[in-house]
């Protein structure tokens, strides 16, 4: 049985919070509609019998790939990485107050 998923405005706001997205009010209704449609589309997977089937998480057939436990800076120094930050001070990245 397929149950239609209805996404509410509250659901959109909850998902936005989980996703660290501070949506503009004008975006919410459109996303509510799109997310409902997408979720209803993907629900057709319910038609497939997957009982007793193992999930596939990756397709390389590789198992743990080890490396030596040595520091590798990948040829990039701290100054170049810090220079990418929008704000920094004394080798640290600056952010607004947390609370």
């Amino acid at each position, binding site marked *: 049985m397929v149950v239609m998923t209805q996404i509410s405005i509250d659901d959109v706001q909850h998902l936005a919070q989980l996703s*660290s997205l501070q949506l503009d009010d004008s975006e919410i209704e459109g996303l509510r509609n799109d997310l409902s449609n997408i979720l209803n589309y993907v629900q057709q997977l319910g038609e*497939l019998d997957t009982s007793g089937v193992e999930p596939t998480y990756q397709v390389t057939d590789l198992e743990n790939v080890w490396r030596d436990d040595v520091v590798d800076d990948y040829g990039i120094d701290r100054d170049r990485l810090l220079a990418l930050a929008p704000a920094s001070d004394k080798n640290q990245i600056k952010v607004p107050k947390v609370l």
Partner: protein
Amino acid sequence: MSKISDFLGKSARQNVLEALERAEAKNEYHALLSLTKDRALERADAVDRGEITGRLAGVPFVVKDNFLAYGAPTTAASKILENFNAPLQATAVEKLEAEGAICIGKANLDAFAHGGSTENSAFGPTLNAFDKERVAGGSSGGSAVVTALDIVPFALGSDTGGSIREPASFNGVVGVKPTYGTVSRYGVVAMASSTDVIGCFTTDVADSELVMDIMAGQDKKDMTTLPDFFSPISDVKSGQKIGLIKEFMTDDVDTEVRALTTKYVEKLRTNGHIVEEISLPIVAHTLAMYYIIVPAEVSSNLARYDGIRYGKRSDGAKNLAQLYGMSRDEGFMTENKRRIMIGSYVLSSGFFDAYYLKAQKARTLLINDFNKLFTDYDALIGPVSPTPAFKLGENDSDPIKMYLADVMTVPASLAGLPALSVPAGNTDAGLPVGVQLIGPRRSDAKLLALAKSMEDK
């Protein structure tokens, strides 16, 4: 159309200057987001002085703008990375440069490679090389169009669910999506890590073989790369058994796309191969699997864009939560937000088993069905896309309609299989159509040899 060999043994500076001129002359297509002129000329001069040699000495190329490369920002066609200057280069770019190739610019894409038309670029769409009212395809639309317009003989793209194959089909060029793990993804903006692959666009198959031969190989900077296996083979024996996927040849598929696919199938038969209709019914469900698994991985991979360590930070944020939320809201396109939020939904407790786990189990069924077919068949064939290039704006208001364009390309992605898009001819209206050849894992060289043997036949 130009080939790599047309550029070898010539003045690299001249090659680069002429490619830059062609890029400027074709500016209206908006295939490129930036040109790397200064660095390209410096490298060209080094090639001309004999300081850099190799199989691609002095050959100009373009990379999709989700490859980290020097000489211009790496934007992923997004606002959040608009001014991001990469501190390193992708392994794929480094390997091509080591053979003397010269990157002249960075190609447009759907922001973060989310899309199938290049209309989701934060900097505006790319136009189709054959009809400026139509889409380039996507997400690697810019890379396909620069190749089709002969600006450069090859370009790099990434393919997560069809992002190389579909634009290759829409613009009449060869597009290669290799076996998952063939080419290092180090230095390429991650989208969905279990299906992302790096590949190329060229005007003929032999050039793709050369570019793939250079890029392929295990990289200690990408733990998902496979041990070296790719090596071009000169020819393929006749009598290859090829399965025509009947679910891709139904009435829902454009008549001319079917007719051109059938014509290619006849050509295979004329050349001594055996083509039989086969059924892969699970493909009816692969788009649903894809649009659960990929958004889940997207939501994780795009969590890193937080406005703190790199990328654009919102000016208005008063505290840390606002800094994340506003930087991300301003920096992402609507399609990016849709995918992130769908990912958050399917991964959240209470829904995880019903969506994500279900999709990963269904993925196993798809892989099993492919494996069964490959015990009898050397390769599978079908169209790349249900239609030729669609009109700009035709699908962009309805995400599901846009997703349906991926229906024939996502199966190979979810199973990690190599797949090619090769030109099969044009419609009466002059729009190119590609056919797709799909093979078992690590059969890349054989697929390319098969496609090469069909050229000019």
